[in-house]
């Protein structure tokens, strides 16, 4: 156990809250499982998932056996995964507070976003730091294309590096592109089968926790979403829209704004 995490008698301890964002299939749930596997023996962890249509992520993580099943909870997002982590974070905040209360004290709560294209980022009012996950199978160009999560998340993960030879991606070049897009912010080439990369990820979480407890870490906002498609969210060809304060359209939804 890390020092200075003595349980308080009354108010639940405020955990370090880490968001995990990125497109569907890039390995967010797997990354959370990896972090749990690496750190569950030394830190008290909790997990919240935000699936779009099922509680499959929560069930996957429970079945991975990396954490007590009760410490993994799913919230619904009303088909608006981006809203639930950015504009109206109410359901997620309540879920985090419940976890912190029920398992007081918790060291770290990991929150997985319902994958919403390349663009959804977490509100700094919900998470203290966020990881944005890409994978090599998405192609070497993705990192260069940028977007708020890629450019300004606290940590960018280029995942599934073990697949690079099969998809013809040059990992060092992809990482270098990402570092350029991120103006030097940290990029981690990760594979769950590469122990050294997993240890780097675990060390990043530990380091952040130290900063969080010392009060030296300030949550950053990567910025609002860029215009994007929702092909996966509502089925059929998506309409281009953005999620800034201006009006926009989802498939089958009237024009609306999210605040």
């Amino acid at each position, binding site marked *: 156990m890390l020092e200075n995490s003595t349980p308080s008698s009354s108010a639940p301890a405020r955990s370090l809250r880490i968001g995990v964002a990125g497109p569907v299939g890039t390995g967010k749930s797997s990354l959370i499982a990896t972090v749990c596997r690496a750190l569950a023996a030394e830190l008290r962890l909790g997990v919240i998932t935000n699936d*779009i*249509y*099922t*509680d*499959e992520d929560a*069930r996957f993580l429970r079945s991975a056996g990396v954490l007590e099943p009760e410490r993994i909870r799913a*919230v*619904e*997002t*009303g*088909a*608006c995964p981006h*809203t*639930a982590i950015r*504009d*109206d*974070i*109410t*359901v997620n*905040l*309540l879920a985090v*507070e*419940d976890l912190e*209360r*029920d398992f007081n004290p918790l060291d770290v709560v990991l929150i997985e976003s319902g994958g919403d294209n390349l663009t959804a980022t977490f509100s700094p*009012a919900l998470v203290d730091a966020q990881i944005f996950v890409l994978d090599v199978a998405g192609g070497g160009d993705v990192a260069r294309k940028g977007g708020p999560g890629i450019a300004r998340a606290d940590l960018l993960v280029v995942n599934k590096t073990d697949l690079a030879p099969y998809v013809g991606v040059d990992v060092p070049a992809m990482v270098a592109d990402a570092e350029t897009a991120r103006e030097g912010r940290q990029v981690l080439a990760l594979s769950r089968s590469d122990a050294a990369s997993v240890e780097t990820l675990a060390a990043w979480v530990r380091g952040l926790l130290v900063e969080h407890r010392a009060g030296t870490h300030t949550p950053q906002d990567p910025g609002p979403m860029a215009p994007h498609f929702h092909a996966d969210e*509502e089925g059929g060809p998506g309409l281009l829209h953005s999620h800034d304060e201006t009006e926009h359209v989802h*498939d*089958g*939804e*009237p024009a*609306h*704004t*999210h*605040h």
Partner: protein
Amino acid sequence: MNLSTTPLSPPLSAPLSSATISMMLADARLPVGGHVHSAGLEPALSGGMPAAQVPGYMLGRVRTVTLVEAGTAVVARHVAVQGTGQGVFGAAQLAVALATVDRAWAARTPSRAVRDVSRSLARGYQRLAGTLWAEHPAVVASALGSTPPGPTLSRPVLLGVIAAAAGLDAESLVRLVVYDDAQTIAAAMLKLEPLDPAIPPGWVLAACAAAEEFVTDLAALTSADAIPAWGAPESEGWAEAHSRTTQRLFRA
């Protein structure tokens, strides 16, 4: 950016109109987590109700569960106004009085799934109220009665508390409950069974019109015993089934 730590309380010296409070509380953009709810529509459609029956479903709620919700909200508002206006109640007594109203609502809401969902939605309102009207005695009392993991108050009781704190009159409160329920269904419909988005707003207005004949009587309620006790058993069955599915867009 320290905006998040310095909430601005609404000025008590310049009271807001009921119209303004209604607009804010009825606005889907209000950050209370309402976007994860469909007012029973997703459970109904998954349970086999044809999409063509949605306008009738909306009207059916106006004559059943919405009367319970609106009546509960009005009585909670009355209790909150009485308890704070004359300074006769302490926060603890007011909490007991609100809990009595809440029990009357629970007795009229037989589905556990529906009750759980209402209480979880209420926590979003509690959060809002605790930020905007932190000092108001009814808001303080409602927080006493809403300490998870214990039972939290239901959404209509919280709406009554907010109505008392914000100065929303009883008739406006009834209309708010009716409108919010119908509009929640209309918005969810566009995600579940997309159609020309200009059509559901007409259903919402029809539902609101159908409720008008009840507004005066509901707004005059002062006793928990007098809260209407209509039910919608099929809808409750759908809600129970939905709470156990692993495939849903909406909490309920």
